[in-house]
């Protein structure tokens, strides 16, 4: 893999107009990645999902070269109907379209940040991302502006790519009193690619971020998405993850509550079948007084699917009056399915209220019996119970338009 990496890297660099210094920086990260390789289960954070093995098994040889010189045609049929929205379209990792038609132009700034480097020293995947990302943007929402319509980021891949590694990076800055609703929508018709996505959010005072990640369409890709959220005073972040379609998907949320009265909400659904293997890992760092976090993760696992949830609440010694809560629940529908959890508390302050809970097991037979005795058949009762179980999480979505969109996607009727 080592020679392949270097060769692909040289090919990419050749096509870009980079200064010597930039090439050196990229080379530095490439060397880092070559040293470390893909994360494996010997690393504590990857204990439940051995990415190295998964890539070997599902993809085999990865190619890191992508030709970004030609443009892809934007297929408008994938756009979401019935919801007016701004668009940002990635096709096979290339940004094809950015449009903020519904917004005041002077309130949003799009800054080309291709030269900058992602400072997050997270794992070897951030090194990989730094070495190969060739175009990256920062979206700045200016002071006091609240976007009229949500922004949907389409991550589309098609059959033009195969066994490729795609690296993306985006940065968002929400200035004081601003707000943004964001949906990450994955549309894949490709197979056996590895997407490596890094987002960075910077939330200034009193700003609101609503971030929804929807991976619903069946596909055979492997995905990793890392989200870093920095929160200033009074800011709110809400993250919702629907983890269902890909062969493997690991979502990581790292949230730093730096300002007083900031709060973070993370809700997630795993709805998996076949041999899928998904993971959500969250780290909420309570770094100052009076911060709040709430996490709810529910899983429904069929066939030989596997879900893992690693959630950590960290409270440092200054963060008195912290309120942290975390709950993960899983229904295992098949003998072969598996649910692993590591809910973690690390607390250094005494005046706090922190708790977590985790439960996993089968559907409650008594409840099924109850419903069947009222005339539903087995299948209907089962569906009703599962829908109810998942609806709990969907109801946490605070934006009603998007809530309805997601309900339709999952197929939950009220």
């Amino acid at each position: 893999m080592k020679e392949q990496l270097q060769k692909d890297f040289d090919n990419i660099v050749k096509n870009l107009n980079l200064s010597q210094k930039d090439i050196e920086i990229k080379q530095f990260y490439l060397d880092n990645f070559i040293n470390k390789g893909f994360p494996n289960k010997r690393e504590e954070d990857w204990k439940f999902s051995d990415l190295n093995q998964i890539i070997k098994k599902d993809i085999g040889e990865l190619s890191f070269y992508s030709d970004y010189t030609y443009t892809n045609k934007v297929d408008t049929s994938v756009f979401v109907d019935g919801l007016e929205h701004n668009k940002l379209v990635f096709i096979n990792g290339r940004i094809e379209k950015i449009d903020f038609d519904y917004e005041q132009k002077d309130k949003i700034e799009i800054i080309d940040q291709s030269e900058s480097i992602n400072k997050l020293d997270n794992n070897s995947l951030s090194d990989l991302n730094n070495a190969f990302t060739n175009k990256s943007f920062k979206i700045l929402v200016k002071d006091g502006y609240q976007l009229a319509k949500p922004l949907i980021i389409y991550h589309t891949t098609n059959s033009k790519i195969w066994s490729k590694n795609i690296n993306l990076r985006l940065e968002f800055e929400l200035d004081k009193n601003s707000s943004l609703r964001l949906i990450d929508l994955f549309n894949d018709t490709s197979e056996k690619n590895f997407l490596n996505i890094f987002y960075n959010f910077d939330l200034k005072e009193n700003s609101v971020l609503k971030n929804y990640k929807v991976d619903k369409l069946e596909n055979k890709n492997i995905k990793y998405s890392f989200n870093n959220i920095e929160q200033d005073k009074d800011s709110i972040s809400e993250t919702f993850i629907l983890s269902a379609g890909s062969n493997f998907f690991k979502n990581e949320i790292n949230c730093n509550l730096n300002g007083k009265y900031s709060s973070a909400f993370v809700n997630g659904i795993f709805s998996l079948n076949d041999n899928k293997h998904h993971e959500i890992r969250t780290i909420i760092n309570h770094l100052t007084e009076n911060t709040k976090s709430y996490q709810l993760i529910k899983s429904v696992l069929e066939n030989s699917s596997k879900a893992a949830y690693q959630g950590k609440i960290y409270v440092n010694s200054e963060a008195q009056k912290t309120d942290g809560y975390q709950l993960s629940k899983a229904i295992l529908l098949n003998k072969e399915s598996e649910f692993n959890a590591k809910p973690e508390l690390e607390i250094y302050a005494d005046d706090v209220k922190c708790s977590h809970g985790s439960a996993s097991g089968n559907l409650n037979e008594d409840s099924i019996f109850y419903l069947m005795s009222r005339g539903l058949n087995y299948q209907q009762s089962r569906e009703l119970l599962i829908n109810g179980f998942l609806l709990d999480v969907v109801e946490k979505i605070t934006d009603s338009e998007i809530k309805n969109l997601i309900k339709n996607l999952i197929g939950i009727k009220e």
Partner: protein
Amino acid sequence: MRIEYKMDNRQKEIENLKDYKYGFSTDIENTKAPKGLNEDVIKFISNIKKEPQWMLEFRLKAFERFKQLKEPDWQKPKYPKIDYQDLYYYSAPKSMKDKPKNLDELDPKLLETYKKLGIPLQEQARLNGIAVDAVFDSVSVATTFREELSKLGIIFCPISEAIQNHPELVKKYLGSVIPTTDHFFATLNSAVFTDGSFAYIPEGVRCPMELSTYFRINASNTGQFERTLIVADKGSYVSYLEGCTAPMRDENQLHAANVELIALDDAEIKYSTVQNWYPGDKDGKGGIYNFVTKRGLCKGKNSKISWTQVETGSAITWKYPSCILKGDNSVGEFYSIAITNNHQKADTGTKMIHLGKNTKSKIISKGISAGFSDMTYRGLVDISSKASNSNNYTQCDSLLMGNKCGAHTVPYIKNKNSESNIAHEATTSKISEEQLHYCQQRGLNAEEAVGLIVNGFCKEVLQQLPMEFAVEAQKLVGISLEGSVG
């Protein structure tokens, strides 16, 4: 009441040892193995114990493996590197060289030591009804009530004696739960263990009294590596207590014991520990490193193993008493109170490994941290794909006193069987002002109020202890937290 009486009696002695009343050391002549860890030392230990060849081979095999292992470093409490060549691996009171036949021949200094500790070795103290095996540094110095137990066929003796007298049992079970190929400290123990207790409860016998081991580290610069092996044959029951203390010394001492429990069909083992090793002084100097491997195997159907621990001592506690639930319908339980104060650190919890069908486990863990201490609950619940219809319930509560200490919960939960349920709950909080106010309003001072509330917080676990221990443990809880309020 016994304990309270003893406490008055010792008042004078302990006046200058207010914080840790077992901190005295006994001036006694020792036989020591040469310093360091090598094959010769292992042969020396084996030789002095007149062990058969197979035992020596067991040790050497473990040592071979040990040489390839690296010291683990994933634990939360970090400690300065231990120089394993700078330790004595064997230390025994000289007077033990020719083993005394009965207690009358025992060195009076030893008897005095145990009397000070409140452990009655003389059998006139039989009212207590506890059979004690006392381990002093590397050797077992006395085992009481042996005759009475042997009438029932129960074997309760130092493990070195069991190796001589019951080789078939020891050979069969030693290393069957903690093999010589286990982790770093367990393997070290397999290579150099010096003594410990052995108990065998024959089929269908309900052990009429509590069996107990009392560990004391006396010599300085000595690691204590004892090995306990308890086998409960079909349909038997035994309750086992373990207590530990050590003198106050400035340097850190290593205690790496192995405890193996084996429960066959329908058998039940209840293992209780009150660990009160010297925790170091107020500034975190000295104290014991308690790196113990405890593991129980529910080998037979309907067997049950229950661990109860009260951890108040040691500079660093690092242990996970575990249950392997292999037999169908077997039950594993873990009740724990861990208290850290000043600069103490603890990383403790349990592992419940469900292999058999209809297996059940329950974990209740209460952690209290005060001062500058750090406490971690780390646990594993693993329900394998074959363990149908199994259940686990886990509850971990942590109490924090002050903002210089830490409380952490790191549970690993693995469910590979859809017919099995796992439930886990954890909370972290502090003692509420309302509760304190209520107690103080009724005439308790702040410290008493905290003691009362903490005892209530721990009640679920304290209830599990045998009566004799419960009283002591309750007091210990109070003492450990002294000076942490206000």
